[in-house]
């Protein structure tokens, strides 16, 4: 009897030790994983910051690293962002509203639902091939901004739809029922009550989706955006380059100076993306504080 108690107490000591070791292991792995973030940021800023000046922002690409800049890439990204936003955001929110607010049930709704989940997992390069065949070739849009924007729109639609649906689903039923009780039609309920209530959540998802679109490289490379572009686009049918494409081009060259240029462009791209992430977090936190339900 005495013996078993002794045994189990030493056993307990061993178990407590294992417990502490396991906790330390979890903390260690978490720190290790999170270490990647500062490492990445420091590497890019250390190499890129010395190159980052007004001349870099306002010059066109060049064979000579000292003269090269991201003027055309930056404007390409701005255009691409604007066009993609005006195509993908309305369609994405409309699709989410249909799936949440117009429940038909049945196989078609199921099909659309499964379909969106799977589309979100399709590699971005496959969207690039789709864009190449449909927009660049079949619709003869060539290597234009609009072809790129349409491709990126298809790519981020599933992201926008999933995020918007979540936001719409979080709107309490009672809000809708109150509006229906006063005789509002379905669209009036959606437009005047569901949409405003879900707006902050939708906005958060939309900003994150857009920040993803701005960083996409593979689909743009596929549709042929890697041309040497020494002008800023003036309209949606112009040829273009974009920040991630320019970065890809510079990284893939063997000369180390071009790698530094790439680092400088990465600092600009990351600044844009991190600002958008911060905006999304801000919108979310504010909405959480103000939420009435």
């Amino acid at each position, binding site marked *: 009897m005495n013996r078993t108690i002794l045994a189990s107490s030493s056993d307990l000591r061993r*178990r*407590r030790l*294992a*417990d502490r070791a*396991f*906790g330390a292991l*979890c*903390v260690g792995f*978490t720190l*290790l*994983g999170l270490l990647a*973030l500062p*490492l*990445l940021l420091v590497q*890019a800023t250390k*190499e890129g910051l010395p190159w980052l000046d007004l001349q870099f922002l306002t010059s066109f690409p060049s064979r000579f690293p000292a003269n090269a800049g991201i003027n055309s890439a930056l404007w390409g990204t701005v255009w691409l962002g604007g066009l993609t936003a005006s195509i993908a955001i*309305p369609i994405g929110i*409309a*699709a989410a*509203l*249909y*799936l949440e607010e*117009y429940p038909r049930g049945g196989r078609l709704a199921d099909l*659309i639902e499964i379909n969106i*989940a*799977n*589309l979100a*997992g*399709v*590699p*971005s*390069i*496959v969207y690039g*091939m*789709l864009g190449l*065949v*449909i927009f660049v070739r079949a619709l003869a849009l060539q290597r234009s901004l609009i072809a790129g924007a349409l491709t990126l729109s*298809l790519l981020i*639609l599933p992201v926008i*739809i999933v995020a918007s649906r979540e936001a719409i689903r979080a709107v309490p039923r009672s809000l809708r029922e109150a509006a229906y009780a006063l005789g509002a*039609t379905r*669209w009036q309920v959606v437009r005047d009550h569901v949409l405003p209530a879900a707006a902050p959540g939708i906005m958060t998802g939309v900003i994150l989706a857009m920040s*993803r679109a*701005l*960083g996409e*490289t*593979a689909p743009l*490379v*596929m549709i042929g955006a890697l041309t040497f572009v020494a002008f800023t686009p003036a309209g949606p049918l112009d040829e273009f380059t974009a920040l*991630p494409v320019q*970065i*890809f081009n510079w*990284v*893939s060259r063997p000369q180390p100076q071009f790698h530094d240029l790439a*680092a400088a462009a*990465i600092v600009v791209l990351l600044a844009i*993306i*991190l600002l958008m*992430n911060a905006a999304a*977090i801000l919108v979310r936190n504010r909405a959480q504080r103000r939420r009435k339900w």
Partner: protein
Amino acid sequence: MAIPGSNGVTAELATTGPAEFLVSRSRARRWKEQFIENLLFLSAFLSVATTVAIIVVLASGALSFLEDVSLLEFLFGRRWAPLLEPRSFGVLPLLCGSFLIVVGSAVTALPTGLFIGIFLSEYASERARSLIKPALEILAGIPTVVYGYFALTFVTPSLRALLPSTDIFNAASASIAVGIMILPMVASLCDDAMRAVPRSYREAGYSVGAVKFEVAAGVVVPAALGGIAASFLLAVSRAVGESMAVTLAAGATPKLTLNPLESIQTMTAYIVQVSLGDTPVGSVEYKTIFAVGALLFGITLAMNVLSHRVLRRLERRYK
């Protein structure tokens, strides 16, 4: 009959009479409602059209490729050289390259991600969570081309300092970068899976005298195993489809090798390589990207479907 200060409704009411007005108004309203519903439906249906378009584009390209090259040669050929004479169209070297990247990134990301998930769901205070979660979100939002730069300018030199025989372009460097890229996804999906395990499971563990480690490893992880497996599958499928880090850091040498320190080529990197050159449309070289793309799409789709099926079954269990 314009009465000062009246609006369109009263003016219409005055000309048509109340009964007709109500009928015509409700008809217009119903028409508008239907119109809007159709518009919303079209937006939702666009996703189905996208899938159909992807399948048609890949399948028609792949089928026209198979008119020139036999399916057996494509799937089981051991040499991939569509751009060089003598040409050869065996996809195994590209599959092998993608496989190396998957294994390398899985080794990097899956255990780390699982431990971060356990930490987040079982150990972290609310405050620690509120710091770690956004950091993971930021990590997840960093563009893939940046990971390519990181692999080439940081990971590769570090590897070569450790193992001087490493090629400049190598699978190990790219797979570490891809691993960091999929890490946030694994961590947060594992966290979700473990947080979905009911509290009562944990309490049952504690009530029989288990310490925290035993509850986490012996109760929570096994109960969340389905969700964890689903997150692993989704992450691996993303690693297969990743194209920028592998194009920049893993090389362009299709090769049947299992040595991660050598230069290789993945399916995605091959597609990027062809799109960068000026391959004439309609040539066999051009068609290869659709055959490879179809294979890539098939593999990732199978993994995604499986993973979603597992997740949906779990959702039903804990509801």
